[in-house]
């Protein structure tokens, strides 16, 4: 790759990072007229919102000088270590952020330990199969579905089982090691499951490479072979493991909310709902630093493992894993049929009127029972599906358009792509909610803002493949110009697989929207939205478990559908589970891209 491409990638990365900092810096300005009202309400409840008072507050915040001046003074203060003053409490935000960060990092440490154990449990059979020359099946759809449960759902389920039914662990708070078990599991099970699946797929692919046979013929010992395969497999999954770790920050928001843990996630959520933008800015900066640290570490480890071989571009790309047998289509078929049945039954009922007794038990007439306002839960879940899935469809189509447009110019887009790929939708949701206030449109915007990345990466890979075809390479000689090559030759080659990929992301996007709804960052009451219904029910889980069961079962079905579809999608789609609330795994295409970028 000649120098300009390498420079373009680097420049693009720096630009993306700067863009992110700028976005954080001008958040008060973006929030528009909301800012002075927020402060007025919080601090000067005795004053009237007269134009003079408002103008005084605006002047105090520096809003009058426009975004650039505000960004400048904010950056100056940040460099000197002053993260700003809370709009709500009028105290410096830095100490709170530091304290919350230390809690969150501790929690993430526990979560990482849990994740590592789970990843190992999933990865060991792949190594054993490889050593015995057994071509084991790729991991089952059911285990993949379990690991892809969104953290907010898993946290709620673990709370019900571990703290309320079994009473083994305390339900809320952060006072000792026993308080960290359930939250660590809620974060660690999906992360570890995903890491394990990625690792075992990479190990299986590694054992399938031809040099393994050569080494076997040469008499390599099992230990020697395992070490070599692991060294070969790890670099290809490390970028994704890095993404999973960064994704933990998004999951932590939901988990810390459920377990009332005084961590950074809950602080951010509080700041976003109260529109306390300085606190949100400080927290976002802390998370950005954390993400950069994780990204740098995984990249460094990758370089060490690959060694000099990376310079020669000789890493064989693993063959795509085979999938798509009829048996694997059974799981998505059953899941989508049950989901469809639930939606159909719910759609004909009324979701808004309180026609039943409060928290009424499920009966034949009222299959899922009633919620705390006496509304029919089946009707709410059914109507919620239309809202959630309908929004998800729009989001997916937007992501597809953006992804294709960006993916056709992969070098310049590297930086924004990596940022969008790593950013958990929950954090994007926090930013959008802080700026515009929580709304269904805001949640959709937030999910779309980060959801285009995997599609763009896939587009880039497909376009690269199409460009490498000799029938495209010869086109300049035939007088075909660049624009025509792109529109007439490349685009038709990439559109079909991308459309399929986008549709397979639909359930994952729906789950991300539900996560935002659960956190109160999406549609507001009385909208029947899955995440919102679950959030309402969780307060009554001890008295009326069905209030949680109805939305949870719909969400579980959507998760199963999301994962099994991705598995059945064959080569068009990653072997890894699709996006979910806290993490956005890249396509294998994404790794290819990164590999290309590193060279």
């Amino acid at each position, binding site marked *: 790759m*000649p*120098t300009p491409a*390498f420079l373009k990638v680097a420049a693009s990365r720096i630009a993306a990072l700067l863009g992110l900092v700028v976005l954080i810096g001008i958040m008060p300005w973006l929030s528009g007229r909301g800012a002075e009202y927020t402060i007025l309400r919080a601090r000067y409840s005795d004053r009237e919102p007269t134009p003079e008072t408002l103008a005084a507050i605006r002047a105090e915040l520096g809003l009058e000088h426009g975004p650039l001046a505000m960004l400048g003074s904010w950056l100056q203060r940040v460099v000197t270590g002053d993260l700003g003053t809370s709009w709500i409490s009028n105290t410096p935000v830095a100490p709170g952020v530091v304290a919350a960060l230390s809690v969150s990092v501790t929690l993430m440490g526990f979560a990482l330990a849990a994740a590592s154990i789970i990843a190992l449990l999933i990865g060991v059979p792949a190594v054993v199969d490889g050593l015995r020359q057994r071509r084991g099946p790729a991991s089952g759809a059911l285990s993949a579905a379990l690991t892809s449960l969104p953290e907010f759902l898993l946290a709620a389920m673990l709370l019900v089982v571990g703290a309320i039914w079994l009473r083994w662990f305390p339900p809320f708070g952060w006072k000792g090691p026993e308080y960290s078990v359930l939250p660590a599991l809620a974060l660690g099970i999906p992360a570890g499951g995903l890491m394990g699946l990625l690792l075992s797929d990479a190990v299986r692919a590694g054992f399938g490479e031809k040099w393994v046979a050569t080494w076997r013929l040469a008499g390599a010992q099992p230990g020697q072979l395992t070490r070599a395969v692991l060294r070969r497999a790890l670099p290809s999954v490390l970028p994704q493991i890095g993404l999973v770790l960064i994704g933990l920050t998004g999951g932590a928001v939901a988990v810390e909310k459920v377990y009332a843990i005084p961590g950074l996630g809950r602080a951010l959520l509080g700041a976003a709902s109260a529109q306390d933008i300085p606190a949100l800015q400080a927290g976002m900066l802390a998370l950005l630093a954390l993400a950069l640290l994780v990204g740098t570490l995984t990249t460094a480890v990758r370089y060490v493992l690959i060694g000099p071989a990376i*310079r*020669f*571009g000789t890493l064989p790309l693993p063959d795509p894993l085979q999938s798509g047998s009829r048996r694997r289509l059974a799981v998505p078929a059953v899941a989508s049929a049950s989901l469809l049945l639930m939606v159909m039954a719910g759609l004909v009922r009324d979701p808004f009127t309180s026609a039943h007794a409060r928290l009424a038990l499920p009966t034949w007439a009222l299959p899922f029972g009633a919620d705390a306002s006496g509304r029919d839960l089946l009707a709410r879940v059914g109507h919620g599906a239309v809202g959630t899935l309908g929004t998800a469809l729009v989001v997916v189509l937007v992501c597809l358009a953006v992804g294709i447009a960006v993916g056709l110019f992969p070098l310049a887009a590297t930086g924004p792509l990596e940022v969008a790929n790593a950013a958990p939708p929950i954090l994007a949701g926090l930013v959008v909610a802080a700026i515009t206030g929580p709304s269904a449109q805001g949640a959709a915007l937030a999910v779309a803002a980060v959801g285009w990345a995997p599609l763009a990466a896939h587009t880039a890979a497909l376009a690269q493949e199409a460009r490498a*075809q*000799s*029938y*495209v*390479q*010869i086109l*300049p*000689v*035939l*007088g*075909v*110009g*660049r624009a*025509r090559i792109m529109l007439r*030759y490349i685009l*038709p080659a990439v559109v079909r697989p991308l459309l399929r990929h986008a549709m397979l992301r639909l359930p994952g996007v729906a789950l991300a929207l539900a996560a935002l709804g659960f956190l109160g960052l999406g549609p507001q009451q009385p909208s029947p939205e899955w995440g919102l219904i679950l959030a309402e029910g969780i307060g009554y889980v001890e008295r009326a478990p069905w209030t949680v069961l109805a939305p949870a079962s719909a969400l579980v079905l959507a998760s199963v559908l999301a994962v099994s579809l991705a598995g059945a999608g064959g080569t068009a789609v990653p072997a890894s589970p699709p996006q979910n609330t806290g993490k956005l795994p890249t396509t294998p295409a994404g790794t290819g891209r990164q590999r290309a970028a590193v*060279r």
Partner: protein
Amino acid sequence: MTAALTAHGISFAHPSRGFRHRQPTETLANVSLSLTPGTSTALVGSSGSGKSTLVRILLALANPSAGTVMLDGRTVSPGPARALRWYRRAVQYIPQNPAGSLDPRMTVSQLLMEPLRQLRVEGNHRSLIGEALDRVEVPATLMGRRPGELSGGQNQRVAIARALVVSPSYLLADEPVSGLDLPLRDTVLSLLDGLVREEGLGMLLVTHDLATAARICGTTAVLAKGSIVEHGPTDQVLENPASPAAVELVKASAGLQLQGTVPAVAL
């Protein structure tokens, strides 16, 4: 000014990339070459000798770091498709594995129509396509077929027809037979030979195999490590190779011939 496609003093070096710069890269040093209509020249060299880079420069797809490519006295350099139309109409290209260079989604007539339209060739396109297919002996009844519905040999001819359809004066053929089974090689080489002899095209045949060069080219240039080390009539190069690189090439071709190894073979 005599009609000729000339490369004069071409040098090419990759921009250095510091410590990453470890991969063997093709460079060229002061390469000059001239093609005239009605003659064929072989450019022979082993892999890494700079053949493909030279072809890319001759096709105005890459910029040399020094030197110029000229067609009939007019300088050529890479640029937008519009600015190079005149050159592309005069100089066409047959790639390695010509059959693979056909878009599988297009029919034969669409494939041949593309250069006619894009290079703004005047005249009746339908009849030009018919003539080109006729020259490579592909029946006009196959015009509506796609590459997947044709045999390997037919695809090969369609790719050659696509280069011929704009009536170029020069053909650059980059290893046009190296991917083919032995029996098919012969027919393709005879076809190219006929184009030079009967239709007066100027041809540059790029190959790693002296035997292929000897088959149809009057002149041979041997490229080794980016420089032309031998340039002369093909039989002279074969009989009396002067440079070590040419000696090695001649030995290698001889070693691959049956009579060199199995004396008892009846020819």
